[in-house]
């Protein structure tokens, strides 16, 4: 206890002090008190490190699965190592597709700041681009969920590692892991709820999902940096083919690992490792089968047994999938009846046209799908109407750089949208009046809607009544 009390160093004698300091220099007593406190804290910490873990999951003997170990974790981790970056990139592309740089009307996260560094002009070639990126994003997300759950199962002993804080490095790592798990589940849950229109989350989906993605990817990058060496070593420790040939009777626990994943008192195996991997794979396959059809469309749409847009809401030319019906957004037949006019603003006085006048102008055609942020899409529909480029020319701005498209829809998110110059000048971009040989139905945007190649569905404004072209 008195190990920190040193005899005075040679040459350092006690000079005679005035009596009011009690015979000691004040600075030395402060130093001594601090040294005592540090020593006490160190011994407390040492004792805390050495306390036995509390009963239950904190004890290593609690975890009994004989197949849990670094190899199994690494297999699931490898799948996520490829899957998560694809998710992040397709998600980032989805945000770029909205052309948020054109203004707050297109942007649900206007305070993105530096997080929008990568944004670029969304192209119109190929015309199915958004259909592909968003179909992959949603379908892959659904398919990866069982892998995520399996990975969390395989590392659960680490949640209860003891002592809980070994050092500052350990503490920071655990904080990052909390953000990793929380961020991952937050992203998957908000995404899954949004595609089913189950809007119970606290705020706009776009805000939560976009910023949540950055929280998650920041933790994901740390996790990959810190664990990839361990993952590679674990994958090399057992051959995949050998493991695929090992049945339950021959399944043995892995050698003890420094992470404490391998059970110290394993129960007899009830499932082989190949069985566990196979079961998770079967889960992903089952989800793929009941989901992918809503994005692929055509004959396969009906196979998406549990997906939200697996059926046609009607028959005939307007029978394809609807994003939001007219009634659900407050568009009434009165707003789109005989009194409806299209206003086209540009250089000079505004043009005001009736639907009959629009139909009298030479009609152009384009075969384009509708692709929604929710991951579903329709097959190519045959639209006819006026080219946006020709409307720009009629407005006196043939080289228009942007157009503000306004709907009769009551004001709300995406009731008005801005389109970019490349979208205006693509010959397939139309103000559509008819589809598949018939007039647009009210739910599909009667009397006129915009349809642009590679555009997210919500930016193809329905019930358009005003176009304002700008340079």
């Amino acid at each position: 206890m008195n190990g920190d009390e040193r005899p005075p160093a040679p040459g350092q004698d006690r000079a005679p002090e005035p009596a009011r300091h009690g015979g000691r220099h004040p600075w030395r007593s402060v130093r001594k008190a601090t040294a005592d406190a540090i020593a006490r804290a160190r011994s407390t910490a040492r004792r805390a490190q050495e306390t036995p873990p509390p009963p239950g999951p904190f004890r290593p003997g609690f975890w009994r699965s004989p197949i849990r170990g670094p190899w199994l974790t690494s297999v699931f981790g490898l799948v996520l190592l490829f899957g998560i970056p694809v998710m992040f990139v397709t998600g980032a592309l989805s945000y770029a597709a909205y052309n948020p740089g054109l203004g707050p009307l297109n942007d649900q996260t206007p305070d993105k700041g530096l997080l929008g560094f990568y944004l670029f002009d969304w192209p119109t070639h190929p015309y199915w681009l958004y259909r592909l990126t968003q179909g992959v994003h949603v379908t892959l997300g659904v398919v990866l969920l069982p892998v995520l759950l399996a990975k969390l199962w395989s590392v659960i002993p680490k949640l209860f590692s003891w002592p809980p804080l070994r050092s500052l490095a350990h503490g920071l790592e655990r904080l990052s892991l909390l953000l990793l798990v929380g961020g991952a589940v937050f992203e998957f849950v908000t995404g899954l709820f949004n595609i089913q229109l189950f809007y119970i989350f606290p705020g706009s989906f776009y805000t939560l999902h976009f910023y949540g993605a950055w929280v998650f990817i920041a933790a994901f990058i740390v996790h990959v940096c810190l664990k990839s060496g361990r993952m590679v070593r674990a994958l090399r420790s057992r051959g995949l083919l050998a493991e695929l040939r090992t049945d339950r009777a021959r399944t043995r626990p892995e050698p003890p690992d420094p992470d404490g994943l391998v059970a110290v008192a394993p129960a007899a195996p009830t499932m082989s490792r190949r069985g566990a991997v196979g079961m998770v794979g079967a889960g992903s396959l089952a989800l793929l089968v009941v989901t992918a059809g809503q994005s692929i469309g055509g004959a396969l749409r009906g196979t998406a047994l549990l997906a939200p847009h697996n059926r046609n809401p009607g028959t005939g030319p307007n029978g394809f999938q609807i994003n939001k019906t007219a009634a659900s957004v407050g568009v009434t037949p009165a707003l789109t009846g005989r009194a409806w006019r299209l206003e086209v603003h540009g250089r000079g006085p505004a043009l005001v046209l009736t639907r009959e006048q629009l139909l009298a102008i030479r009609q152009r055609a384009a075969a384009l799908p509708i692709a929604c942020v929710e991951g579903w899409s329709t097959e190519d529909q045959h639209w006819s109407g006026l080219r946006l480029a020709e409307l720009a020319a009629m407005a006196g701005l043939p080289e228009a750089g942007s157009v503000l498209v306004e709907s009769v829809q009551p004001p709300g998110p995406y009731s008005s949208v801005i389109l970019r110059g490349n979208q205006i000048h693509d010959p397939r971009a139309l103000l559509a009046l008819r589809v598949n040989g018939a007039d647009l139905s009210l739910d599909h945007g009667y009397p006129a809607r915009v349809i642009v190649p590679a555009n997210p569905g919500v930016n193809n404004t329905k019930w358009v009544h005003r176009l304002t072209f700008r340079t």
Partner: protein
Amino acid sequence: MARALRWYGANPLHLLVLLCSFALTAYACVRLFAVRPVEVAIWLVGAAILHDLILLPLYSLADLSALSVLRHRAEAVPKAPWINHLRVPAFLSGLLLLVWFPLVLGISRPYPAATALTLDVYLPRWLIITAGLFGVSALTYALRLRRLRRAARAVERGARPGR
């Protein structure tokens, strides 16, 4: 310097990577928590504990209960291990429900009005899929049992030659 690193508990690159990550996280969190911060925090923390402290204990308990239920039955005939014939269809069915429950349970209220489609197909479909999964599992188990019993009878006949 070396002492500081020893006290930190890892090499300086570790600290650097974590600090960069936390900087990005803080930048995003400021914006994430800008509106309704308490509810967003509840969702984020809830997400962190949802699987590990709610879902995992529930399904582990179910699994252990299933394992212990028939352990004490007398083994009159040769049996194949049946637990995976229960686990796999339960896992697949539960997974489909976990992903699609707002549609299957019909609790996504905006859905019918927005899509002009009905919710009532989802529950029957999920039930039929579940029945199908368990049915296939039971069939494969029955086939396995038959194969085992045939093999056991062949062994018995082989052990008593001339009978």
